[in-house]
């Protein structure tokens, strides 16, 4: 087996090439086998089929505007979904991420309203988001309450907090104190996406507003959120696949006894993951606040956290722990976005919308599982 030793040690960490069995070489069959063996293969196939279907039905799907709107819609799914991947690998779940996404903007607003600079308010909101994750983690790990319950309770609690403090009134984030500059200048919309109403005065290098930073530094115009979402996704992917921490997360989720036996601080690993998902959920929430400029205390977090979990699971992440695919979660989130966008564009009645969505997700998931079983046979 010396030959095998050479080939394995020569392979790069992420080996894109089909691992050819000694002596057989690369054949069409081996390439097909490699494709089927990939955990993300089925969800990619299903997504491509969905795109093809909707592009036949409507041409609007190809416009830049529509793409931006869809991606902005999908961005929180991608970010929270990537965070949920960490949770699901640990065989835990965080239902509060959606409510954190909604609450972090309120934190920004409250602290900004109290007179702090915007930058500082954002920083505090992020720290508080991380602290929410810390509380989730500590209760789960120390008291042994299932994370499903802990984070559900956290969702209720945060929802209530926002309702109480906001007195159930919507707020606009104007980003300006006192009287705005004399002549507001409207800048041309970027990439066809209009500036939010909250941009009262012209964002420029001399009068920068958060939206100005958002569109010029955090990203290019309407693409900012999706750029951030992809960045967060890439960081979590790298963390999970290429760092010690990632191996420890997988080990903790796969066999917590073995992980603890090997000396991995399993409790600390879990708490870190709770903090990571909470922080990134808060961050993407703040970005959406900057983009949209308004907050509604009636928005409910469970509506936001469930699609990312579906995205992760449709993408090929197991609910039982130890198995995850960050790439699959990205595709899963895109699948959900394209599905919703496509149904919208093809003029499906709002009444049928959720019914159809439910059926399609179930079908996609069942297909995924069946093909997955097939793939396992190939993997042996």
């Amino acid at each position, binding site marked *: 087996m010396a030959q095998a030793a050479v080939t*394995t*040690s020569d392979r790069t960490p992420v080996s894109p090439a089909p*691992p050819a069995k000694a002596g057989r070489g690369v054949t069409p069959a081996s390439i097909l086998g490699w494709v089927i063996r990939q955990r993300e293969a089925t969800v990619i196939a299903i997504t491509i089929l969905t795109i093809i279907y909707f592009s036949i039905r409507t041409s609007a799907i190809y416009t830049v505007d529509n793409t931006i709107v869809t991606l902005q819609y999908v961005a929180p799914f991608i970010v929270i979904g990537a965070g949920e991947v960490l949770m699901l690998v640990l065989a835990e779940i965080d239902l509060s991420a959606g409510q954190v996404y909604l609450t972090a903007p309120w934190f920004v607003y409250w602290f900004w309203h109290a007179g702090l600079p915007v930058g500082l308010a954002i920083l505090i909101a992020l720290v508080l988001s991380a602290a929410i994750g810390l509380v989730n983690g500590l209760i789960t790990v120390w008291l042994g309450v299932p994370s499903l319950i802990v984070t559900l309770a956290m969702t209720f609690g945060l929802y209530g907090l926002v309702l109480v403090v906001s007195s159930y009134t919507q707020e606009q984030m104007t980003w300006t104190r006192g009287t705005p500059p004399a002549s507001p200048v409207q800048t041309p919309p970027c990439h066809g996406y209009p500036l939010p109403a909250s941009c009262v005065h012209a964002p420029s290098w001399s009068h920068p507003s958060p939206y100005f930073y958002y569109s010029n530094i955090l990203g290019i115009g309407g693409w900012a959120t999706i750029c951030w979402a992809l960045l967060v996704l890439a960081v979590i992917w790298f963390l999970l696949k290429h*760092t010690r921490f990632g*191996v420890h997360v997988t080990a903790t*989720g796969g066999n917590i006894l*073995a992980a603890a*036996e*090997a000396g991995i601080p399993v409790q600390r690993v879990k708490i870190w993951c709770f903090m990571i998902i909470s922080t990134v959920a808060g961050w993407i929430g703040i970005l959406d606040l900057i983009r949209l400029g308004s907050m509604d205390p009636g928005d409910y977090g469970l509506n936001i956290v469930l699609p990312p979990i579906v995205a992760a699971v449709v993408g090929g992440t197991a609910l039982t722990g130890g198995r995850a695919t960050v790439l699959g979660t990205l595709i899963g989130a895109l699948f959900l976005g394209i599905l919703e966008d496509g149904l919208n564009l093809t003029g499906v009645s709002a009444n049928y919308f959720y019914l159809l969505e439910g059926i399609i997700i179930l079908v996609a998931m069942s297909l995924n599982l069946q093909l997955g079983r097939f793939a396992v046979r190939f993997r042996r």
Partner: protein
Amino acid sequence: MSAAPALPDEPAPDGAAAQPVSGAETDVILRTEGISKRFGAVVALRGIDMHLNRGEVLGLVGDNGAGKSTFVKILCGFQRPDEGRIFVEGQEVEFHAVKDARAVGIETVYQDLALVPQLTVYENLFLNRELTSVGKIGVLSRRRMRHLARQYLDNIKVNMPDLDQEVEMLSGGQRQAVAVARATRLNARILLLDEPLAAMGAKESALIMELVKDLSSQGVSMIVIDHNYAHLFALCDRLNVIQQGRITVDTRVADTSVEELTELMVRSFQRQLLAGQEALGEIAV
């Protein structure tokens, strides 16, 4: 950033395994003196004097409740004895926790408890001892880990074609081999194996037996607990029979046979039964 630990230092010369039963003090790697343990009214161990020679495979035989597992738990630091002393290479040691035993090179191998099924063979071998580059961020050096894992497995003659395979996909024997390899790679000099051949086919058993022989010839000493005499005779150099918390028989495998041992156990069982009946009789009278 730590370099992979190499093989256990100074492997014993070939033939060390065939040392006579009462090995010279210098070759005794592990020795216990009068280990006793009671749980409430139940006396589990009544003074166990045992020794393990370097590179030797010692089998522990005994009925359920004879005290085997209590003894092993004390050796691996999981429980503390009420009385008695433990010596590793002539030096007295005291274990307060499993990690104390591990620190002097005593490791217990459980087939399924030790491995993470979703991680690859080499990731399991390096679990929590991962090699990294880029300092504190801890980016995995997969190539280096694969290379060293391959080198080490070749060294202890474990045949593992694909190190990138997830442990879940391996057979029971291969998993056992990975678990043992991990323990010894981390400088374990004394392995406690709990039923290493349980639920294994002939081919699998052969794999583990070969591994045990190779390791013992490289100076790793092992204590094997098993109910199956055939397994013990195939694996061990020497057998200790534990009965009612004491070592009653200490014999080289070559000097005894499955039949003799079975008869011994049956006879003692009958004696106990008889004693029990007599005791009951006295109570009745």
